[in-house]
């Protein structure tokens, strides 16, 4: 549970286009790390390299090293599918599987992979995950209803339950609240703070206030211009980034001068 992620000289390519250049950082376990920066700076690209999801796009690849608790997930003999089983992801728009019930959605990490489990095991795992996602009380009487019958905020918590049900080491959140209303957003933020007790949480967010509210460490990315690669400008404790950043670019961004 809760691994420590180290990126060393990581470069991310789409075909021949360098999208993100030379990232060196350490993501601490049992903490929330936020990626912030203007549109197109590569933060979404970078978070997808943490579970090798960027490879779903043909021609995408990385150079460099990315280790979890010391193991390089990009080593040649590593199976990307197995990496993804250890790293959970929540997306910008809630995407529960429409043909499955709420319960089956939570268990989909097991069921889609043909894992056999007894009914009692299944019930326990589903309840535990839904409790962990703060959704249990709202859905415990309608577990067989379709996943798409919930509201937006509930659907996103369902996706979080789905992600934590397989007990990953890391949870990635790619702008998880940008499609939600303020109340649901607050619910998800509270949830993220609870989750960091057990998991490493990395969150990409457009919303600086969100980053300053919930994260322990913040990484600020920027690009020099269109067509240029994204770079890590500054990475430090959240308080420092927002009150007393070292780099001028960082200060300009957090004070709203651009982005």
């Amino acid at each position, binding site marked *: 549970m809760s691994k420590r992620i180290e990126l*060393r*000289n990581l*470069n991310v390519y789409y075909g021949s286009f360098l999208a993100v250049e030379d990232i060196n950082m350490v993501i601490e376990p049992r903490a929330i790390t936020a990626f912030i920066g203007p549109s197109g700076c590569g933060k979404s690209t970078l978070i997808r390299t943490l579970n090798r999801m960027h*490879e779903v796009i043909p021609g995408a*690849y*990385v*150079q*460099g*090293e990315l280790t979890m608790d010391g193991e390089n997930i*990009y*080593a*040649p*003999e*590593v*199976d*990307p*599918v197995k990496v993804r089983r250890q790293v959970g992801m929540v997306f910008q728009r809630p995407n529960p599987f429409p043909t499955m019930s709420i319960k089956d959605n939570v268990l989909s990490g097991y069921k889609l992979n043909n894992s056999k489990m007894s009914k009692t095991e299944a019930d326990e795992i589903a309840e535990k995950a839904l409790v962990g996602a703060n959704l249990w009380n709202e859905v415990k009487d309608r577990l067989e209803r379709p996943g798409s019958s919930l509201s937006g905020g509930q659907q996103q918590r369902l996706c979080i339950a789905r992600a934590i049900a397989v007990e990953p080491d890391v949870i990635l959140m790619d702008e998880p609240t940008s499609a939600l209303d303020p109340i649901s957003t607050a619910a998800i933020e509270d949830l993220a703070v609870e989750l960091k007790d057990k998991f490493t949480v990395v969150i990409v967010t457009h919303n600086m206030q969100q980053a300053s509210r919930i994260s322990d460490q913040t990484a600020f990315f920027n690009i020099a211009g269109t067509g240029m690669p994204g770079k890590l400008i500054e990475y430090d404790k959240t308080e420092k980034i927002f009150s007393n950043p070292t780099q001028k670019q960082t200060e300009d961004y957090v004070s709203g001068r651009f982005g």
Partner: protein
Amino acid sequence: MAATESKKSVTRLGDRIFSRTATFAGASILLTLAAVAFFLFLQAWPALLPDADFGGKADDGPLAYVAPFVFGTLYGSVIALAIATPLAVGIALYISHYAPRRFSQALGYVVDLLAAIPSVVYGLWGILVLAPFLTPSYQWLNENLGWIPFFEGQVSATGRTMLTVAIVLSIMILPIMAALIREVFLQTPKLHEEAALALGATRWEMIRMAVLPFGRPGIISAMMLGLGRALGETMAVAMVLSPASVISFALLTSQNPNTIAANIALQFPESGGDYRSMLVGTGLMLFLITMAINMVARYIISRRAEFSGAN
């Protein structure tokens, strides 16, 4: 820190099997078409040899035999298209812009019902209902407008003429054409329509200004689709037409050039030897003609797509 390029060096067995099966399925399409071309050519080949014996049915050689059928196929389909196109545009316009909105889906279903009727039923209806219904009109046309080349000749007493066939064909291709054109008309950007109305245009003027220009590539698309279907139609023609081996433009007589497809349907079951080979050859010709028209259509549409309102 060694820089390693990440490659897809690990693929799962399930993925490999599945993707290969899918690729094989795709390749089987190519295989099937190659097989069609191969077997047809194989069977048609003997008819092209100089010493082919057609059993008296094609004494002037294969080309002279085929010529009326090629003519009949194209002639009937072109007339059907000429009848169907304005009707399809009219129907599409009616459903998209004239009928009350609540009914437009239901009306669409009604026209689509025409498409569900099998061609053999069209054949029965054509020869037993439509032909007799039109015969008096043919007589009138022949008597009074017989100086027009289309209406000349000895008028048919049964109504089994090229014109009847063309009308049946047009009814058969009407629903798909109307459905396609209706889709396109419904997609006319509201902005264009409202701009015309804001200029004080009447409904027809608005349609002329906004809907028709936008829909032109779609109309051409539908025409090609309709033409393709009409060319391949067999049973309706086989049952309705009264055939003869002539090349003639006359629409009202009993001496009509048959179509390639209908001729094959009528002659093939009892045929044998080189004559059967020749029939297969005509089938191959039909296939090539239809393919050619499809490709021309695709070319025209891709050229016009740049100028269509869809951009």
